């Protein structure tokens, strides 16, 4: 494990902010278990729980917390200077941090989605959801990590993207779905394990290409922004 990822993991898991990661996945599992125990038809509770909660809320919100945290927290408290005064090419800082962020997000989201998927349908659907969510975790984290270098308010802007763009506009203006990571994840999961529980208008090739583009493009942007990272001047 590289030193950068070691410090990143220590910083991420050592802060109290880390506890924020648990309520949503627990809620997802609870709802799935409850629905199953009460004998509700999976066709009824599957889409709202798996997609409405799991892919539309849990995945992007966890990715938002983690993705903006791996570098953003260090920028906020100034410790990023210790990392930047090292003779490291900046990609050697961005990539380990992205790996930690995507890894932590994937594990936190994939496990409850797998459980919910198994309860709603089959092991195959559970695995498909987990795999697609992991790809989504990478794309979301790359996006949010870059956001934390581009703006001083990455969490706010990230929330606007998740809630307004993906959540609200996606329902009314179908064109926005082409630029929605959530839709790519649904399309990919449906491709891995075709099920009537998941439905989207975005085609699988579009989803695959766009996910890759977002992950690579925003990572490149983050590397470039970190190269010209300026320490804010004293305000006093």
């Amino acid at each position, binding site marked *: 494990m590289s*030193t950068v990822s070691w410090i990143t993991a220590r910083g991420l898991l050592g802060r109290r902010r880390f506890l924020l990661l648990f309520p949503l996945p627990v809620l997802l599992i609870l709802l799935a278990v409850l629905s199953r125990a009460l004998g509700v038809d999976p066709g009824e509770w599957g889409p709202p729980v798996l997609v409405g909660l799991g892919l539309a809320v849990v995945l992007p919100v966890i990715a938002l917390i983690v993705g903006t945290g791996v570098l953003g927290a260090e920028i906020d408290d100034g410790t990023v200077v210790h990392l930047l*005064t090292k003779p490291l090419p900046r990609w050697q800082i961005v990539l380990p941090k992205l790996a930690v962020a995507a890894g932590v997000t994937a594990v936190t989201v994939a496990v409850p989605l797998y459980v919910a998927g198994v309860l709603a349908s089959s092991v195959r659907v559970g695995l498909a959801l987990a795999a697609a969510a992991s790809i989504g975790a990478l794309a979301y984290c790359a996006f949010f990590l870059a956001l934390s270098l581009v703006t001083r308010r990455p969490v706010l802007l990230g929330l606007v993207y998740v809630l307004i763009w993906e959540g609200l506009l996606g329902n009314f203006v179908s064109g926005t779905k082409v630029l929605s990571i959530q839709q790519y994840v649904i399309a990919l999961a449906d491709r891995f394990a075709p099920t009537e529980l998941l439905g989207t208008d975005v085609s699988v090739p579009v989803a695959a290409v766009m996910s890759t583009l977002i992950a690579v493009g925003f990572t490149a942007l983050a590397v470039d922004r970190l190269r010209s990272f*300026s320490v804010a001047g004293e305000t006093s």
Partner: protein
Amino acid sequence: MSVTSVEPRSTSAPTGSRLDLAGVSRWYGNVVAVNDVSMILGPGVTGLLGPNGAGKTTLLHMMAGFLAPSRGAVTLDGAPTWRNPEVYRRLGLVSEREAVHTFLTAYEFVLASARLHQLPDPAEAARRAIALVELEGAQSRRIGTYSKGMRQRARVAAALVHDPQVLLLDEPFNGMDPRQRLHMMDLLHRLGGAGRTILFSSHILEEVEQLSGTVQVMVAGRLAASGDFRTIRRLMTNRPHVFAVRSTDDRALAVALMAEPSVTGVELGQAGLTVRVSDYGAFTRVLPKVAPARGIRVRQLVPEDESLESVFSYLVEA
């Protein structure tokens, strides 16, 4: 407490790096933070002196490659410091902001720095750097439990772990107790003596006086004075002074003082006299003689502009 016999590690690298600032300016919108500063920093300890808000931190950030100059260039041995992480092989920075990974111990923190520098023997380098700042006793405690001075030393150790040719420190003595301050001064002295280029900023005259022979004085974004400290100190003490004087007979005292060569002007006001003086020492010797000779008792003598800012702004005009 062990005797500080730890010497900076000597390397085969050529000693004596040169930090070169050529016409460097930095502005934020309409606000000019640093205005056309040129200087060359060579081996030894240099103090960057100036009142708060003079642009010292902005200048240091540009030197350290954390800010692009709006105009001009900062180069370390010919290579630009901006967008060039390679300079950190030869440059260390201790920023003013007290930012440390509080969840790490000092040893872990310094060791992580050594690893990030890809040093051949990180553990040994970390031990050496921690010994240099005398933090061995507390090295396995989390930095979160440290006092301000100890945190500062942990950060200095991290900045020194790769034995840089150039070390930049922004207000390194803030929050240190007198013993820590002496120790830090001694450390910087030894590093400077060993051919390292050390630059530290401070707004406290005495710190700079004790530590460095060469100073760069910044006022309001400009380089106001530069060179030997004693020369600048003389300029500072010989500058015109203004005193507020109240006495039993202000008018008579004004007449008497105007006859003195050390006095360049007297103003008679409601609240007493404002006396402008060209020679501080001569005036303070003359006043106690002149007044009693005329039967005048001086009730109050207050120097009016002893603030550091006024000292500095005088230097700008000189």
